[in-house]
C-alpha cells in the first residue's frame, strides 16, 4: 500500500474521513501520521469556536462609538437607534458585570438620596441605549469633541447654569441646531476640579423623574450631541452632577449647577 497522497493528508488534518484503504494505511503508517500531525497544528490553532464565522449578533453598548470617534477623529456618527435595534444587547450584561459590584449607592447614614436608584438597572440601560448617549466607556472615555464639524449651527435654546447649595460651579448651556438638523448641547462650565470623581451633564424633565445622561464634563466648554427626536420641552433642565468613579451609571444625587432651557 503506497503512502497517502498529500491531498489526503491535508483532509485528514482537517478531520475529514478518508476512504477505507487510505484510512487503514494511515492507522498503520507512522510517517503519514507524523505528516498529519504537523499539518494539524495550524488547524488546531485556528479552527476553534471563538474564531468561527460570526454567530448571533449582539448590539454593542451605546457608549462604544465614542471611543471609536475619539480614536479616529471621524465626525460622522452611526444612528444609535439603528445600532440598538440591529440586535439584542448582550444578555443581562449589566447584571453580570464581572468582579465585585458595589451595591446600589444608597448612603446608609443620610436620610435622603432620593435619586438613586432611579429604576431597575435594566430599564435605565434601555433608556440609555435608545437615547443615543455618549457616556464614556473604555478607550477614549468622556465627551467627544465635535468641534471640527464645520458648521456652526443656529442657537435654539439657552440657559444660565446657577450654582446649587454652596457649590462654586456655574456656567451656561446652549442648544445649537446644525444645518443637517442634528442638535448639540454646548456646556460651558466654570468650576474647580471636584474633590473626587468627575462632573457629568444631564438633561432632566421638570419633575426630575426622567434623566438623560449626556457625558463627562470638565471645566471649559464641551459639546454633546443630542439624541434625534429628543423633545427639549420634555427635558428642559440642564444639570451638572458630581459622580463618583464607582461604575454605577445612575445619577449620584449630588448636583452642582442647574438651569432651565428657554425653549
Amino acid at each position, binding site marked *: 500500500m503506497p503512502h497517502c497522497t498529500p491531498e489526503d493528508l491535508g483532509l485528514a488534518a482537517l478531520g475529514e474521513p478518508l476512504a477505507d484503504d487510505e484510512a487503514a494505511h494511515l492507522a498503520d503508517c507512522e510517517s503519514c501520521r507524523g505528516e498529519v500531525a*504537523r499539518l494539524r497544528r495550524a488547524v488546531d490553532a485556528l479552527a476553534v469556536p471563538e474564531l468561527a*464565522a460570526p454567530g448571533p449578533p449582539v448590539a454593542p453598548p451605546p457608549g462604544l462609538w465614542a471611543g*471609536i470617534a475619539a480614536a479616529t477623529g471621524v465626525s460622522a456618527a452611526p444612528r444609535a437607534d439603528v445600532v440598538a435595534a440591529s440586535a439584542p444587547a448582550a444578555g443581562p450584561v449589566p447584571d453580570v458585570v464581572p468582579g465585585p459590584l458595589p451595591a446600589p449607592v444608597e448612603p446608609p447614614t443620610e436620610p435622603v438620596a432620593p435619586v438613586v436608584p432611579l429604576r431597575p438597572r435594566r430599564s435605565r440601560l434601555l433608556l440609555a441605549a435608545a437615547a443615543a448617549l455618549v457616556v464614556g466607556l473604555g478607550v477614549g472615555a468622556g465627551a467627544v469633541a465635535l468641534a471640527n464639524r464645520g458648521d456652526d449651527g443656529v442657537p435654539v435654546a439657552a440657559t444660565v447654569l446657577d450654582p446649587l447649595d454652596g457649590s462654586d460651579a456655574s456656567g451656561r448651556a446652549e442648544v445649537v441646531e446644525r444645518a443637517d438638523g442634528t442638535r448639540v448641547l454646548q456646556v460651558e462650565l466654570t468650576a474647580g476640579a471636584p474633590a473626587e470623581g468627575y462632573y457629568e451633564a444631564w438633561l432632566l424633565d421638570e419633575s426630575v*423623574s426622567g434623566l438623560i445622561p449626556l457625558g463627562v464634563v470638565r471645566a471649559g466648554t464641551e459639546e454633546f450631541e443630542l439624541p434625534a427626536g429628543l423633545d427639549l420641552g420634555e427635558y428642559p433642565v440642564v444639570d451638572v452632577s458630581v459622580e463618583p468613579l464607582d461604575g454605577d451609571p445612575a445619577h449620584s444625587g449630588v448636583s452642582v449647577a442647574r438651569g432651565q432651557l428657554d425653549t
Partner: protein
Amino acid sequence: MTGLLPSRTGSGRHRVERVTTEAEPAPAGPAGPDDAEVGRRFAAGEEQALAWAYERWAAQVHGMAVRAFGPGPDAEDVTQQVFISAWTGRAGYRPEQGPLPAWLTGVCRHKIADTWARRDRQRRATEAAVAELNAAPAGGPAPVDSTVADRVLLLGELDRLGQPQRGIIELAFFADLTHTQIAERTGLPLGTVKSHIRRTLERLRDRLEVDGAALHA
C-alpha cells in the same frame, strides 16, 4: 455641593418603553447605499462609510467578541479596536476581494487573538513577579503559550493568501465545511479545492515550523 434631586415619581417607565419601541422598526434601508457601495466608500476613506459600517456590522463584530470573552470590557475593547484598526488600516481593504463585513470579521479574529496574547503576556509577567517574590531559583521566564502565539502568526499568514485559497481555507477552518461542501459552495472542482487546501496547510505548517520555532525559542 448637595443639590439633591427630589424624589422620583416612577413615571419614567412608560417613556422607556415608548423610546425602545420607536427604535425597533428603524430601518437602515433608505438612509444609505447598498453594502457594496458602503465598502467602496469605506475603502475610499469617506467618513460616513465608517458610521454606516458600524450601523450594519457592529452587532456582528460585537457578537464574535462577546462569544470569545463574554459581555464586558474585553469584548467592548475588541469591538472598538476592530473599527479603529479597520478605519486606520482601510488601505488594506480591497473591495474586489470580498465584502466589507467579511473583512471586518477577519480584523476581529486578529483582535481576539491579540487579546489572548496580551492576557498570556500578563500571566507570564504575574508568574515572574510571584517567582521573584518567592525568591525562587531562576528557572527562566515562564513559557509562552505556544497556541496563543501560533494563532497570531497564522492569522497574519492567512492575510497573505490570495483568492480563492483564502476563501477556501476560511470555509474549512471557520465555517467547518468539508471539501465537498466547499466545492459546492464555491463552484470549484473538487480536485482544485483539495489541492488548495493541501498547499495552504503546508504553507501554514512551514510558517509555524520556521518562524514559530524562532518565536518560541
